[in-house]
């Protein structure tokens, strides 16, 4: 039940037909005796009426076929399928090599495969060699890549400075691995040769790596750990500047 004289709230509620029958009648009786307030309320009612009339024509706009629910649902299904396909490529390609027992044992009992940082090599093949995956970040200068990496990996080592070997950070990509999210930064020199810096958490088994190096087909990987993450530097075997890269990585640790 409203009180009289009415509050402004009550007057708006009257204009917007949001008062009960009794309140409505009481307010109308009161307004009949208060012409100044009555004039304000009438003006608001007129404005509201005009607004409704002006917008009524818009309900009959020409239909837009792109907005039909069937068409929208088709697009939503397509987007979903594309996203799932993308995610599947990553998990299969990175997971298959890195953790042999993963599919059989399920994601909890992770057993890291004998060869360390196989995922770094897989990621390098997909991203830097075959170009299957698009970059998440493309650099203009080295400072940008570092800032990008810091957004995802706090307290990770600084990107190694490979400028002595002519390599600058160019692009970066986030990856999903069964050990957790990983990031790869790809360096490139003037000749278009590439090397990658790879970071990921040690995984649920907290598997830290002794410093080491190994060859896998045409690729060479150096790997190491610090208290927070596992790292790898991957590049092609026989890269002339390989020694300079190794030194730079060694200094970064």
């Amino acid at each position, binding site marked *: 039940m409203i009180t009289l004289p009415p509050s402004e709230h009550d007057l*708006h509620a009257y204009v917007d037909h949001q008062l009960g029958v009794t309140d409505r009648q009481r307010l109308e009786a009161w307004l009949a005796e208060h012409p100044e307030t009555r004039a304000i309320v009438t003006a608001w009612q007129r404005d509201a009426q005009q607004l409704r009339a002006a917008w009524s*024509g818009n309900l009959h706009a020409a239909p837009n076929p792109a907005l039909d*629910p069937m068409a929208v649902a088709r*697009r*939503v299904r397509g987007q979903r399928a594309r996203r799932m396909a993308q995610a599947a490529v990553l998990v299969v390609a990175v997971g298959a090599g890195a953790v042999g027992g993963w599919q059989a044992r399920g994601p909890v009992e992770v057993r890291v495969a004998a060869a360390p940082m196989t995922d770094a090599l897989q990621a390098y093949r997909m991203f830097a060699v075959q170009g299957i995956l698009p970059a998440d970040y493309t650099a203009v200068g080295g400072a940008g890549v570092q800032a990008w990496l810091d957004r995802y990996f706090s307290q990770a080592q600084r990107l190694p400075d490979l400028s002595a070997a002519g390599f600058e950070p160019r692009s970066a990509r986030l990856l999903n691995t069964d050990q957790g999210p990983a990031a790869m930064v790809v360096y490139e020199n003037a000749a278009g040769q590439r090397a990658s810096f790879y970071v990921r958490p040690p995984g649920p088994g907290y598997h830290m790596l002794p410093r080491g190096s190994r060859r896998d087909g045409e690729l060479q990987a150096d790997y190491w750990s610090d208290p927070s993450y596992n790292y790898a530097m991957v590049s092609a075997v026989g890269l002339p500047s390989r020694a300079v890269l190794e030194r730079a990585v060694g200094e970064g640790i």
Partner: protein
Amino acid sequence: MTDLNDELRELLPRLRRFALSLTRDSHNADDLVQATLERALSRWTGKRAEGDLRAWLFSILYRRFIDGHRSAQRYARMLQLFGGRDDPLPSAERTVMAQAGLGAFERLKPEQRALLFAVTVEGLSYQQAADVLGLPIGTVMSRLSRARKALHQLTEGEITRPAVRIYK
């Protein structure tokens, strides 16, 4: 799902109209409606048909508008910073809405347009409007009061403005 599609189809003109009241541009309005429907359909599995479908869709649409509007504002500020440009109204639509007698309405702030539209044109209750716009009911009331007074002032201005405007 077929039933949902029918319901959505029926609400489509209202969604487009609400989107137009916010964006003031029919292309942007339809983009906004499309994004709203995509969101609604991808979330539908977890949502039962209980409650007011119109209010639910309106709230998704408004949320998306606000998010887009914020980034557009940031972009506009940036443009202004670099080129001194400021283009607050889509000029072609201005005529369309002005011709429809909505010249005063389109000059209100977006959040005032949204509320007046929801309450006056769509006839939502104050509580429904609060839910759609994501506001406490007290804010709805104070904003409604300001919006209504601003609209009235602008409407008076519109009426007394010289008729020369038509020939522009």
